[in-house]
């Protein structure tokens, strides 16, 4: 059981599992609404179908519009290499890797929003503006949470910061970790455009955030966007799972199933949140994000007081 085995499982899981999470969320929401809902594997079928379809491009667009989906997908794919999964190691791990993680997502955001503006559509401009605005408040909250983990672990590598040693800190400094967990879960919802920030199923362009940015994409490019969004959910979900459940059983046959189970639980929780909450009015979104910053901020203050 060398590291190569771990890395292979890591990459396969990171590339294969994400669409399932979307399926689980949809299924949970359907159950809450008393419907049968689409099959859990529906997102996979959607992706396969989209990759086979033709596309329509707006005449106003340039190469930036086509580069948007590519960069957005590639950045999250590389980001999955940095995230520690079940055995608390990652294929790529070095001092300060979390900065690269955050900035890779930033690069993806830059190109997704630019691609949206390339269409010259007022709706997509609106969505791009919202996306970059809300990210401005989510980013500090993420880094405040990282401060807590760096302080606790004494390390600047995600693999150690979210490693199994975190388990012992849950007993000593649990209050800080609870605050960070809450804060990061809010960021997960915001960054992945879930309710209460954004409704991925809404049908009114004016009220969307992420979906409206990709209105003009179609076919394989749109497939890349959907797949990238699923991977992004996986990245944030993995962070939350590692934070909430850092224990390792010692055997990979135990650790990997536990991790996958944790991811499915996160998906179910997102589904439950989406079922029991309404989305916030747009002006209230920044308030919730500032609250996420404050939660993490109090987390670090509790540690260093």
């Amino acid at each position, binding site marked *: 059981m060398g590291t190569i085995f771990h890395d292979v499982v890591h990459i396969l899981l990171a590339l294969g599992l994400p669409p399932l999470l979307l399926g689980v969320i949809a299924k949970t929401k359907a159950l809450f609404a008393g419907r049968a809902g689409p099959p859990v594997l529906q997102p996979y079928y959607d992706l396969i179908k989209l*990759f*086979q379809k*033709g*596309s*329509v*491009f*707006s*005449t*106003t667009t*340039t190469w*930036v519009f*086509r580069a948007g*989906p*590519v*960069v957005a*997908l*590639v950045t999250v794919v*590389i980001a999955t290499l940095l995230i520690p999964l079940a055995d608390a190691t990652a294929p*790529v791990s*070095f*001092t*300060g890797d979390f900065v690269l993680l*955050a*900035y*890779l997502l*930033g690069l993806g955001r*830059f190109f997704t*929003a*630019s691609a*949206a*503006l*390339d*269409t*010259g*559509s*007022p709706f997509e*401009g*609106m969505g*791009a*503006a919202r996306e*970059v605005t809300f*990210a*401005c*408040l*989510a*980013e*500090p909250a*993420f*880094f405040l949470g*990282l*401060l807590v983990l*760096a*302080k606790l672990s004494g*390390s600047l590598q995600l693999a150690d910061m979210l490693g199994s040693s975190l388990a012992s800190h849950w007993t000593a400094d649990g209050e800080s970790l609870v605050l960070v967990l809450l804060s990061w879960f809010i960021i997960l919802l915001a960054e992945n455009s879930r309710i209460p920030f954004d409704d991925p199923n809404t049908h009114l362009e004016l009220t969307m955030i992420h979906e409206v940015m990709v*209105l003009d994409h179609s076919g*394989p*490019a749109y497939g*890349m966007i959907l797949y990238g969004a699923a991977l992004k959910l996986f990245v944030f979900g993995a962070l939350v799972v590692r934070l909430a459940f850092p224990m390792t059983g010692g055997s990979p046959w135990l650790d990997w199933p536990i991790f996958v189970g944790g991811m499915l639980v996160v998906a179910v929780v997102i589904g439950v949140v989406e079922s029991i909450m309404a989305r916030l009015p747009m002006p209230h979104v920044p308030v919730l994000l500032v609250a996420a*910053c404050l939660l993490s*901020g109090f987390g670090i203050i509790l540690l260093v007081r």
Partner: protein
Amino acid sequence: MSESLVLLGIIIAASSGVPGLLLGRTSMSGQWVTTFLAVLGAGLGLGGVVWFWATGESQPVVLPWSIPGAEFSVAMDGLSAIFLVPVFLISLLGNIYGLGYWKQTEHPKNGRKLRLFYGTLTAGMALLVIARNSIPFLFGWEIMGLSTFFLIGTEDHKKEVREAAWIYLVVTHVATLSLFALFALLRVANGSFALAPLRENSLSPGMATAVLILALVGFGSKGGIMPLHVWLPSAHAVAPSHVSAIMSGVNIKMGIYGLVRITSFLPHPPREWGILLLGLGVASGVLGVLFAIGQHDLKRLLAYHSIENIGIIVMGLGLALIGRSSNRADWVVLGLGGALLHVWNHALFKALLFLSAGSVIHAVHTREIDHLGGLGKAMPRTSFCFLIGAVAICGLPPLNGFVSEFLIYLGLFRTLVDGEGTSFTGASFAAPALALIGALAVACFVKVYGAAFLGTARSEHARHAHESPSIMLGPMGVLVACCFLIGLAPLLIAPFLQQGIWAWAPDLKDSGPRLTMLAPLEWIAVMGLLLNITVLLGGVVLWMRLRRSVVDEGATWGCGYVAPTPRMQYTSSSFAQMLVGIFGWVLRPRTRQPKELPLFPGETDFHSEVPDRVLDDVLLPTFRFGAWLFSWFRVFQQGNIQIYLLYIFLALIALLFWR
């Protein structure tokens, strides 16, 4: 040898504009001669720097001078070398760019003046960077300040240009005044005008505080640290673009150089210095980018980003100072290494952005972002250069801005981790602030890039835009290449940064950790390459897929509306509106809109702007109050020379009795 080369470069650069004055007004010959000389001088200067790096030798040049206490003494060290590179590089590229952008045949009135002062500006900056005595330093400083004044005022027939130049002149004089006081204090402590490290305990705490405050006013106002930035936005906006490039890329770094040099003189700076600088850096960074988001003027927006980036550099310097007073070598290495690298990086990508903005102005003749749009089709190369500059300034991988911000992040996070010395958690709170700055910068540059280069043209001028000549695109291409080089091969430049760090803190040379040990630069290179390769790969995959499937063209989706017009696009102001609203309590935007509309509304308009609060709300009222306060002084001003002589006589008598 390296000093001689640099001095020769300085002399040639300083005189590069003189032959042009004698040659014809309406022919290009003078410009070619000047550009040749400027390139030669800058090349010699760069050669001197390379010589220093290659051999590590420094042979100070010391000449006696008739000014009491002063001597003409110049020398090279790691810090000077780092700051000389942008001085000569950007000057060289700017001069070549000028051949296409500010042709003598198109600007017969002010072309020769511009090039004369471009040369003296380069010479002044290079002189102050290698000076080892306060007096030549101040000479370089004043040459720089006055040259910049004339450069800002290139188009002095316009009122806004004269006003911007005038504000700059006031600020630069205040800066020079406080530098006089600063160097006088250092002379008291050191016994000479030599710029050399101070002896232990030669400064009392009170004097040390005075030194810091004078240095902050003198160097900080040149560097554009909030709230001393007032001259910067309008000056950068009205100057010709290659002048803005050297002002923003290099000129304001001279303020940083001064701060770095002065702080290197104290072996044990008080910890409060570092905390103060870190705080000022955070304030400049966040406020700079916030004000940038509210701007409509392309170059004014870029100018506010200079304030932001100066903030990031000052954060690194503050961290290094905290490390110095807490005996944490790792904070010094990461903080100062990040700051020095960001000096280079900002010089590269900001010059690139200003030159690209110049290319846009050359084609469209407006700086209003909301009058641009769709330029990516007519000016693909300029558009690409601007995009690279935008990604780099946001600190995104795989470009150079990421590397320097990465170093500063690492240093800030290391304040949490106990090492051999003490930990200092307070500094780590600057890390989320840096994250906020980064995210705001992304928002701002998506706005500019999207509104100016993407979508469709918003005005008649933008519709008829054309690509700039290759003499302008060449220098921009060089800067693009530099951005990629530092981003993908940071290990190449680490030795130069290390020499700069050792020049600042010589005691680290023997025992301290190295930059390459503290920061995984090789991983940045690997991940950067991986990112580039996978993006290319992904592009190829999409391209193949699109080639094999049905691809149609149609209008942009507008909820079924099939005749979209350019006016329906989201404007840059709308894009920024949400952020300006969230941070309205500090930005205080001014809007003008109709109060209430009648039953059948006629034509109406909406206007919003984010003016500079420090200038408009603090300084101008203060100056007006001062002018009112001192108006009573006019009683003494009779305009009669006998009365003035009487004043002198009375003052002398008073002094006699006072003794």
